[in-house]
């Protein structure tokens, strides 16, 4: 089949849902209408630790239009056992149960839900709910809890703990002629997707619900609802057709889902609950962290020892974990490695996966440290990375299914003009601006997850492909349409993709950059199965021109199935269906990891990020004037949406380097900059030239489609490339992210 040409895969293709989105026709969770809809507003605690001793909800009940005020004293019934509250991606611990008791474990923790017949009445009444507390001592400051850090006793599923040490890293460090040991920190970040969390729960009678929810996994959220509320699976349908960004924050069901469903079941009405922007700061976040990286090298720059320790924040009720330090054991060749990762409990909500969880902060620290080491050795920062290239994963002793990182270095450097770099810091200047160039390597997992899909071919030749995937702005609608179209040689408009619905074929949550590889491959498998069924019917027809053909000999295009070597031998799909008395052919496709292959091989996406900054040193102002991100990500299905993924990741990386941080008043245990005016992400003006390069990388092992995924690799390495460029410009090394004006002036 590979002989037929792909018309759509590999071609820059506009989003099939683009027009719906820009014309406002794409509906998001909180936009679905329902008859007699009620509106909920959440009230948050004003302390970070303690107990509620009294709640005054009477003024709220007096507001015209208020239907009910739920608190821990009258909330609806829900599951008793912890495990009933654990969703697919939950870390070990006791999942948060809204209104479960009078205990307060973080600021802004929901203490009441006001339900009213209008959003305005609900908001008004919510502002009138007050509570009295028995205040307990809280701590939101990781620094103060570092000494109590612990290795999480129970591992989070899917997150590899740091590998055992190899070699003798302490002695190698001691003996090496050149070494550094540095402390880094990336301040806590909040996802802040454009779309606020919202759920519209439509009550269909008899505990039957249709739920529109902002989630990255319709089936994960549906499973949570049925488990928490003891509902029959067939009675709960959860839809997430469009998701206005998420970055990992919607992997786990957030509490507005619980509230909408709880109120709906209790009141036997349809209920909508949305979070406000401020309340978005009281859900998961990228953990605060302190990291120490110690590197030693010989005089040529070959790594002799790598030690990387990280302490990251978690909540008092769950042990959130991510792979922060593991990267330091596999990005470069080194025989002596020691990696450690510990947690410290704070009075915050449980952190949650945020774009490239773990790597985004861990690789940042490693890549800054390696840059520092390159200056100690006196070697070009790109050269030290090439010199220490790892040709296998030394953590697991497995081969990479592919690793075109050298091509990333080469093509990225050429596009950037790295060879013109002056090696000495502070050697490039233009007016008030010092100019600096920095580089970093990036790395992220390339997963294939279990996924299922169906393909349904109609007699008129049109195709529908279905899988319960989510599109969080990544382009899933479009690539699945492209894959279906190429399988049957159809124009895009003859293919309909169906995603974002828990009733569709089984899909993992949309995360980890695995959707294109997993759901894409499942759709392709379903299409192949449908094509094979079509072929069997074609073969069976009287006087079939394909009677002597094998499936491998034929292709489908232009509404016909034909021999590739003799296209005159053909049959129309409509003819075949008519002869077989069929209106449609529907088949399933399934994919999953090849466990046998996984004994020997492991897959990653790689990148090289080059950054140019201009620093007005006197005023501490940094501008990132150029980024070149060269990525090796296997097969690129849609260069247009793929590029957008990298652009978004790079912008977020610039935010990590220069802007984003939750500012917490530790006396109060409160985040103070809880809005988008004061929690800074890059504005358009902060983003200048970003060039994206996809290097050739052919990988038949990583996934049936040869795809690796791109959602996360763009952020990994960007912050470190920027920080390294700032050092090159100024000779100042700031190790505490974001690198703001005050830190540069003090450096």
């Amino acid at each position, binding site marked *: 089949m590979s002989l037929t040409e792909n018309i759509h895969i590999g071609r820059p293709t506009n989003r099939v849902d683009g027009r719906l989105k820009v014309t406002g026709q794409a509906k998001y969770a909180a936009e679905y209408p329902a008859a007699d809809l009620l509106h909920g507003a959440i009230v948050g605690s*004003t302390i970070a630790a303690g107990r509620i001793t009294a709640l005054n909800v009477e003024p709220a009940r007096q*507001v015209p239009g208020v239907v009910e005020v739920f608190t821990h004293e009258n909330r609806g019934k829900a599951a008793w056992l912890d495990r009933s509250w654990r969703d697919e991606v939950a870390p070990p611990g006791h999942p948060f149960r809204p209104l479960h008791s009078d205990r307060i474990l973080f600021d802004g923790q929901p203490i009441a839900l006001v339900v009213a017949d209008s959003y*305005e*009445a609900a*908001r*008004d009444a919510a*502002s009138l709910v007050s509570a009295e507390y028995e205040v307990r001592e809280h701590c939101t400051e990781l620094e103060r809890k570092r000494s109590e850090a612990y290795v999480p006793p129970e591992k989070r599923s899917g997150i590899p703990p740091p590998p055992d040490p190899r070699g003798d890293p302490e002695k190698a460090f001691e003996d090496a002629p050149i070494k550094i040991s540095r402390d880094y920190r990336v301040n806590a970040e909040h996802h802040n997707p454009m779309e606020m969390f919202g759920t519209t729960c439509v009550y269909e009678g008899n505990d039957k619900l249709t739920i529109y929810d902002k989630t990255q996994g319709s089936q994960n959220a549906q499973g949570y609802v049925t488990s928490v509320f003891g509902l029959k699976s067939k009675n709960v349908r959860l839809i997430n057709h469009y998701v206005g960004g998420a970055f990992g924050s919607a992997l786990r069901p957030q509490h507005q889902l619980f509230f909408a469903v709880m109120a709906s079941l209790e009141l036997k009405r349809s209920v909508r609950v949305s979070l*406000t922007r*401020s309340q978005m700061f009281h859900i998961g976040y990228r953990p605060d962290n302190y990291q120490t990286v110690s590197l030693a090298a010989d005089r040529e720059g070959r790594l002799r020892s790598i030690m990387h320790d990280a302490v990251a924040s978690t909540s008092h009720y769950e042990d959130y974990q991510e792979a922060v330090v593991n990267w330091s054991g596999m990005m470069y060749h080194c025989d002596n490695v020691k990696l450690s990762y510990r947690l410290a409990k704070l009075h915050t909500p449980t952190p949650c996966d945020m774009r490239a969880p773990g790597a985004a902060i861990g690789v940042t620290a490693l890549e800054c440290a390696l840059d520092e080491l390159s200056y100690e050795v006196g070697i070009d920062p790109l050269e030290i990375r090439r010199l220490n290239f790892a040709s296998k994963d030394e953590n697991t002793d497995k081969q990479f299914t592919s690793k075109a990182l050298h091509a990333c270095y080469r093509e990225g450097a050429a596009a950037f003009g790295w060879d013109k770099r002056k090696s000495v810091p502070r050697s490039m200047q233009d*007016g*008030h*601006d010092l100019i600096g160039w920095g580089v970093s390597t990036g790395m992220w997992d390339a997963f294939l997850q279990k996924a299922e899909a169906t393909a349904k071919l109609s007699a008129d030749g049109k195709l529908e492909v279905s899988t319960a995937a989510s599109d969080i702005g990544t382009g899933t609608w479009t690539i699945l349409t492209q894959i279906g179209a190429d399988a049957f040689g159809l124009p895009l408009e003859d293919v309909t993709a169906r995603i974002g619905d828990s009733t569709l074929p089984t899909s993992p949550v949309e995360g980890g950059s695995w959707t294109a590889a997993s759901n894409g491959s499942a759709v392709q498998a379903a299409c192949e199965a449908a094509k094979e069924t079509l072929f069997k019917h074609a073969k069976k027809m009287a006087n079939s021109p394909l009677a002597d053909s094998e499936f491998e000999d034929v292709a489908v295009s232009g509404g016909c199935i034909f021999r590739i070597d003799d296209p005159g031998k053909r049959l129309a799909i409509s003819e075949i269906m008519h002869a077989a008395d069929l209106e449609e052919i529907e088949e399933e496709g399934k994919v999953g990891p090849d466990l046998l292959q996984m004994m020997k091989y492991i897959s990653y996406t790689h990148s090289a990020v080059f950054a140019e900054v*201009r620093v*007005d040193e*006197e*005023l*501490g*102002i940094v*501008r990132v004037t150029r980024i070149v991100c060269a990525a090796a990500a296997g097969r690129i299905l849609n260069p247009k949406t793929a590029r957008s993924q990298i652009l978004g990741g790079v912008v977020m990386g610039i935010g990590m380097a*220069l*802007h984003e941080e939750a*500012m*917490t*008043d530790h*006396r*109060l245990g*409160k985040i*103070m*900059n*809880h*809005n988008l*005016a*004061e929690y*800074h992400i*890059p*504005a*358009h*003006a*902060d983003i*200048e030239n970003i060039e994206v390069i996809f290097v050739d990388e052919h990988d038949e092992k990583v996934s049936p489609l040869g795809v690796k995924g791109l959602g996360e690799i763009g952020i990994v390495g960007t912050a470190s490339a920027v920080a390294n460029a700032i050092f090159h410009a100024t000779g100042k090394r700031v190790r505490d992210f974001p690198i*703001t*004006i*005050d830190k540069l*002036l*003090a450096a």
Partner: protein
Amino acid sequence: MNRFDYVRPDNVSDAIRALATGSSKVLAGGTNLVDLMKYDVERPGRIVDINRLPLKEITPTAEGGLRIGALVSNTDLAWNDDIRRQYPLLASAILAGASPQLRNAATTGGNLLQRTRCYYFYDPSTACNKRDPGTGCSAIGGVNRIHAILGASPDCIAVHPSDMCVALAALNASVDVEGPDGKRSIPFSDFHRLPGSEPQRDNTMSSGELITAVVLPPSDFGANYTYLKIRDRLSYAFALVSVAVGLTLKADAIDEARVALGGVAHKPWRDTAAEELLRGQRPDTQLFLKFADQVLTPAHGQGENNFKIELARRAMVRALHQAFAGTPQDQSVKSVQ
């Protein structure tokens, strides 16, 4: 957000009558008031929507200046030909602020009356003397990297967030207000106030008064001026420090100098005694540093914002160089000139 009554008067006297009840609030562009209502910081019993009042004109004054109606939008003001020709400092300052969408909605009067961006003021679960007098100031000893280095009090360390007002302070504008007791004109330097023991009062307007216009006297700062704004990102961020400069030159020396600072105090900060240091002097970095040191003599950091003192010093020197050289900061150019 609470329930409220809403009225939309057609003329100024009806508006003033409507404002007579204590819990009324004026709605113009709404870019700040509506946010504050969503945060339950403002809970007005009545909204007086003044958008139908005839206050949208920019007209010449007999003295040769301009009178700007209170409802002229920030965008219209910044791009008005007379403003751009005679008061480019004002146009530049406006364009350094907010975003085009906000400037389209925001009005001249509203810009003067915008509230501080102090994090604590915006969070009703915290103590704040400006929001709830007598409760204390949480910003002292708290998250205060954006707070005041000049003119603060033990009761409040908030700063005024406007860019436009910094230029108006340098231009010696005045504010026309009208209330139950008639009309009056307030010099710009007297309009906003320092927090003292009454930080709930941002300005010297009386209860029930309405801004009708901002009046600009004739200006000679068309050639040697600048508005330099230093912030945490290149757009849509409030100033950490901003500097408005207007100079007139005589031969190679400075004749008159006006320098106003934003982002550093509860009001746009002028030090007219320090400005006198510049008069008759030939400009150089040493002179500018001497001036900046004089302005910052009373400066006092709160911990996280200590850096703003040095940043203000450097920003003043750079801005004075820009103004003297006749190369004002272009708000569409990202690098600082």
